[in-house]
C-alpha cells in the first residue's frame, strides 16, 4: 500500500520523529495528508519544515504517485 510505503520513507528521513502519520484522504492512494513531529523542526521556519518533508517524499512527488500532498509539521519543543 502506498500509505505504508510513504510512512516508511518518512520514518527513514525522520528517525527521531515523535509522531508520524500518513492518511489516504480520498481512498484512492494518491491524495495524502502526512503529519510529522520531530525535534528537527524545532526553531525552523514552517517553509523549511515543509521542505524537509517534500525532500523526503521527492521520488513519489516526482513520479506522480502523490497527486496531492497536505503537510502538517510540528516541533517537539
Amino acid at each position, binding site marked *: 500500500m502506498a500509505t505504508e510505503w510513504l510512512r516508511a520513507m518518512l520514518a527513514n528521513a525522520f528517525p527521531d520523529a515523535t509522531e508520524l502519520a500518513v492518511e489516504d484522504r480520498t481512498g484512492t492512494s494518491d491524495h495524502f495528508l502526512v503529519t510529522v513531529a520531530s525535534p528537527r523542526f524545532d526553531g525552523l521556519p514552517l517553509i523549511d519544515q515543509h521542505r524537509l518533508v517534500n525532500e523526503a517524499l521527492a521520488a513519489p512527488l516526482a513520479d506522480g504517485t502523490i497527486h*496531492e500532498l*497536505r503537510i502538517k509539521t510540528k516541533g517537539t519543543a
Partner: protein
Amino acid sequence: MTDLNAKIKQVIEGEDVALFMKGTPQMVMCGNSLRALEALRRAGAPVTAVDILPDPAIRQELSALSGWPTIPQVFVRGELVGGADIVEELEQTGELERTLEERLGRDYREGRAEKTVAVV
C-alpha cells in the same frame, strides 16, 4: 534561459504577491489552490494569479526555479512563502499579515486588486 523561464521569473520578482495555481481566481480547478487563494483574500493580499494548467512546462519551470514540488505556490516580493498548508497556517496565526506588512508596507490592503497574468 528560456522565454517561459524569464516570464515566470518576471512575475515572481515583479509582482507584490504571486499565486501560481490550478485555474484562475474566477474558476479555481483545485481545492488546494482555492485554500491558498482564500487565505490570501482573508489577509487582504493584492494577488496576482498565474494559471499553470495551460502548459505542463509552466509547472516544470516553476518547480525548478523555486525548489518546491507542488501547486499552489505563493511568493511575496520574490520570496517563496509556501503552498496551501503553510499560507493557511500563517494566515490563522496572523503571521501572513505581518509578513505582508513587513514586505509591502502597512497600507498594503489599500487599492487591493486581484489580477491574473499569463506566462504562455
